[in-house]
C-alpha cells in the first residue's frame, strides 16, 4: 500500500501513523484539534503488560485469562492472545521513544495493581499515563513529519467515507477553516475517533468524542459490534460543567462507600460483599450504588492528611478544585457515570471492518474487551490495535481499482448549502441535549424492555426531525450535519440492548437479571435503509 488516511489523533491514530511510516506508508492524520486535546490524555491509570520479570506466578496466559474472564468470554481468544503477547513489545517501544514512565530502583517501568487482575502488571507514568504517552507519540509523529512520511491536518471534521460496492476509497471532510468539503483518497482509511462519551452529554470523557464517525459509517454499511456494553464508572461527582471521575485508586487505598440511614452510616458494599466489598468490579459497584437509590458517599478521610497527600494527591486536588471538598475531612458524594465503550465498529483480528480497506482502531473498534473491560487494557489496546492495522495495511499490495466520487461530493456539498437555509423550531444543540437525556435515562446501568422501547421511540422522533433542524451558524458546521449520525448510533445501541434479553458484564437487564447461554456471543448490528438488524455472532465470523 502507498498511503492511508487516519481519522483521529489520539494514541491509537498516532501509533498507526508512526508504524505505517516505519513500514514505508505515507499517511495523513486528520482531526479538528491537535493530539493534546484528545481523550487519550485523560487516561490516568496505566497500561497492562507481563514483562520479562513478572510478578511471581504471572504470565501472558494469566493476562489472557483475566482479559477474557473480565469480558465474560465474549472477546475472541486469538485477538486477546495477540494483545497480551504484544504488550511487552509495546512497553519496550514506549520506553524507546522516550515515554516518561514511573520506574523502579533498576530504572525499569514500575508496576502497580489494578482492578480485576490476578497480578501486579500495570505499568504507569505517575497519574498521567495517557498524557505522557501522548507527549512521546507527538514527538514521534513530528519525527515522521520531518521525514515526509506523515502530514497533519487540523480544523477538519469527518463527514463521510467514500465507499462503493463494499470498498472504501477515501473520506470526505468538512474543512472548518475554509468552510467547505474536501475529499481525500487513499489506499486505506483508519478510524481512530474514540468512544462516544459526548452522546451522553458532559460525562467523564472528552466533549469531542460523540460517536458521529461510527454512527455515520454504520449508516454507510459498516457493522457495529456489542454497542450495548457500556462501562459505568461507579465513583464520579457532579460539577457545574461535567462529571469528574474519582480514580479507582481511592478505593484501592481503602476508600469506603456508604449512605446515611436513620442518621447512621451504612457501609452497604461491605455489608453485602464482605471487607473487600468496596473493590468489587466497576459494574457491580455501579449497580449497587444505583440500587441504593439515595445519595452515596466515598470516604477516605480516615487515611489522614499525610497519607492522602502521599497516595491520593490527584483525587485531593480534583475534589478541592471542583467541589471545595477537603477529602481529609469530609466524604465525597459519588454516583456512577458513563466511562468506556466496549462496543464499536466490528473489526476482524487485522482491524479491518466489513468494508474493504476501512479499518478501525482504539476505543471506536470493538474487539478485545467483550462485555466488560479490564482496567489498564484500554491504553494497551489503543497502541496494539494501531500497530496491527499498520502492519496489515503496509503488507497489502496497493488496490488496483480507483473510483471517482466527484458527483457524490458535489451532491453532499449542495446538501450542506441547503441546510444553511433551513429554518425550523428545532435547534441542533437542543436536540443533542434531548438525545443525551434520553440515553442517560433509558440506557442506564439498569435497563428493561419498557425503558429501552421508550428510548427508541424518543430517538426515532428526534431522527424524524433531524433532517429539518434550524441551522446554527454560530457552531461549527460539524454540529449541524453530525446530528443524524449521532442519533443513529444511539438508536443502534438501544436496539442492541433491547435484543440482548439477558444480563452479562456491563449490560444489566432488570427483566432478565441472569446470564443466558443462548446469548453467549457478540451482538452484530447492521443498518439496512433505516432498519436495524441485530444478530448474534455465534459462528464468530469476526474472529479471523
Amino acid at each position, binding site marked *: 500500500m502507498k498511503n492511508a488516511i487516519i481519522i483521529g489523533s489520539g494514541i491509537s491514530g498516532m501509533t498507526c501513523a508512526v508504524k505505517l511510516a516505519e513500514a514505508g506508508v505515507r499517511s495523513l492524520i486528520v482531526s479538528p*484539534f*491537535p493530539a*493534546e*486535546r*484528545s*481523550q487519550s*490524555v*485523560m487516561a490516568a491509570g496505566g497500561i497492562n503488560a507481563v514483562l520479562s520479570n513478572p510478578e511471581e506466578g504471572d504470565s501472558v496466559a494469566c493476562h489472557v485469562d483475566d482479559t477474557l474472564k473480565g469480558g465474560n468470554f465474549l472477546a475472541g481468544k486469538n485477538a486477546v492472545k495477540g494483545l497480551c503477547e504484544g504488550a511487552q513489545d509495546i512497553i519496550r517501544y514506549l*520506553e*524507546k*521513544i*522516550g515515554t*516518561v514512565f514511573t*520506574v523502579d530502583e533498576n530504572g525499569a517501568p514500575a508496576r502497580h495493581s489494578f482492578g480485576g487482575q490476578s497480578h501486579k502488571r500495570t505499568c504507569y*507514568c*505517575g497519574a*498521567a499515563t495517557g*498524557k*505522557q504517552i501522548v*507527549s*512521546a507519540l507527538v*514527538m*514521534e509523529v*513530528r*519525527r515522521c*513529519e*520531518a521525514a515526509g512520511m506523515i502530514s*497533519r491536518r*487540523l*480544523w477538519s471534521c469527518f463527514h463521510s467515507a467514500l465507499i462503493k460496492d463494499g470498498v472504501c476509497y477515501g473520506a470526505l471532510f468538512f474543512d*472548518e*477553516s475554509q468552510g467547505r468539503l474536501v475529499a481525500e483518497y487513499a489506499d486505506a482509511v483508519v478510524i481512530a475517533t474514540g468512544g462516544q462519551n459526548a452522546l451522553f452529554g*458532559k460525562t467523564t470523557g*472528552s*466533549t*469531542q468524542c460523540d460517536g458521529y464517525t461510527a454512527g455515520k459509517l454504520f449508516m454507510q454499511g459498516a457493522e457495529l459490534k456489542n454497542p450495548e456494553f457500556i462501562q459505568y464508572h461507579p465513583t464520579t461527582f457532579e*460539577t*457545574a*460543567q*461535567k462529571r*469528574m471521575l474519582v480514580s479507582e485508586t481511592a478505593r484501592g487505598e481503602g476508600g469506603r462507600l456508604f449512605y446515611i440511614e436513620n442518621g447512621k452510616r451504612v457501609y452497604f458494599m461491605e455489608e453485602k460483599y464482605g471487607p473487600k466489598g468496596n473493590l468489587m468490579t466497576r459494574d457491580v459497584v455501579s449497580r449497587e450504588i444505583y440500587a441504593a437509590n439515595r445519595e452515596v458517599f466515598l470516604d477516605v478521610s480516615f487515611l489522614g492528611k499525610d497519607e492522602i497527600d502521599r497516595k491520593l494527591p490527584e483525587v485531593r486536588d*480534583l475534589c478541592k*478544585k*471542583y*467541589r*471545595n471538598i477537603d477529602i481529609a475531612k469530609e466524604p465525597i458524594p459519588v454516583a456512577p457515570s458513563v466511562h468506556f465503550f466496549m462496543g464499536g465498529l466490528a473489526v476482524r483480528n487485522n482491524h479491518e471492518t466489513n468494508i474493504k480497506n476501512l479499518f478501525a482502531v482504539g476505543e471506536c473498534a470493538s474487539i478485545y474487551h467483550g462485555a466488560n473491560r479490564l482496567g489498564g487494557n484500554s491504553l494497551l489496546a489503543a497502541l496494539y490495535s494501531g500497530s496491527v492495522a499498520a502492519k496489515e495495511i503496509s503488507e497489502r499490495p496497493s488496490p488496483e481499482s480507483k473510483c471517482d466520487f466527484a458527483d457524490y461530493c458535489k451532491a453532499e456539498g449542495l446538501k450542506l448549502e441547503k441546510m444553511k437555509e433551513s429554518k425550523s423550531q428545532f*435547534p441542533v*444543540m*437542543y436536540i443533542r*441535549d434531548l438525545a443525551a437525556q434520553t440515553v442517560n435515562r433509558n440506557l442506564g446501568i439498569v435497563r428493561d424492555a419498557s425503558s429501552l422501547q421508550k428510548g427508541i421511540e424518543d430517538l426515532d422522533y428526534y431522527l424524524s426531525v433531524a433532517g429539518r433542524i434550524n441551522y*446554527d*451558524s*454560530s*457552531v461549527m458546521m460539524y454540529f449541524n450535519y453530525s446530528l443524524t449520525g449521532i442519533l443513529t448510533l444511539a438508536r443502534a445501541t438501544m436496539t442492541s440492548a433491547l435484543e440482548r434479553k439477558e444480563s452479562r458484564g456491563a449490560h444489566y437487564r432488570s427483566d432478565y437479571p441472569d446470564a443466558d447461554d443462548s446469548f453467549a456471543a457478540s451482538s452484530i448490528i447492521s443498518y439496512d435503509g433505516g432498519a436495524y438488524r441485530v444478530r448474534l455472532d455465534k459462528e464468530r465470523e469476526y474472529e479471523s
Partner: protein
Amino acid sequence: MKVKILRQKNPFSESYWEAFDADVTEGMSIAGLLDSINYNDDIVNDKGEKTARIGWECSCLQGICGACAMVINGTPALACETFAGNLKGDEITIRPLSKFPVIHDLLVDRSIIQENLRKTDVYIEEYKPDSSKSKSKKEKEYLHQYSAAKCLKCGLCLEVCPNYAGGENFYGALFANDCYLVASRNKEKAGEIGKMYKEHFGRGCSKALSCMDVCPMKIETTASMAKMNRQP
C-alpha cells in the same frame, strides 16, 4: 453578573464587545458560565437582543487538555479551572488569546506552536539518557521530565510573555520545556537541540518568568532553562 466577551464572527471580520447578564452559581467555572449562556434555545445579550452562541473550544473540562485557554479579567487562564466566585470585581471580561489569529469568538488558531516545534526537529528519537549521573540527580531529572512532558501546548505561556510576538523567531516557554525534554531523554541530541534552544529561546528571553505564573501544569521553566543554558 455582567459578562463582557470580545467576539468576532470569523477570521476576517472586526471584533466587538458584547455583554450578557448571567446567573453565576456557586462553584461555577468560566467554562460552566459559557455553557450556561450557550445552552438556551435563544441566546440574548444584556440588551435583550437575540444573538449567536459564543464560540469556544473545550475537550476535557478538567484542566488537562489546554483547549479552553483564554484571557479572563486580563489574566491568561484555562476557562475550566477559573472560578467566577474567585474573580474580583462585579463584572467578568473574557477575550480570546491575543497572540494567535482568531477563528471565531474565543477560538484561536494555535497551529504555529506545532509548526515551530516541527521546523526545529524537537523530537526525542530514541531514549538515550546520560547514564553517568548520580541516582539522586537522575531522580530529580525524572521529576522535571515528567512535569515538562505534561505541557498542554495551550499557549498561555506565550500569551503572557513580553518577548513572544507571533512566533516568528522567539518560540517561548513551551519550546524551552520541550527542548529540555529532548535533551534530557536523548543525550546524543542535546547539542543539536541546544542550538535551536539558544536561537529560538535563550537569546530572546528577558526572564520576566510570568510564563510560570500562568502555566496550568506548573512547569518550572527555569529548571529547563538552567539545564539548557549549560549546553555547550
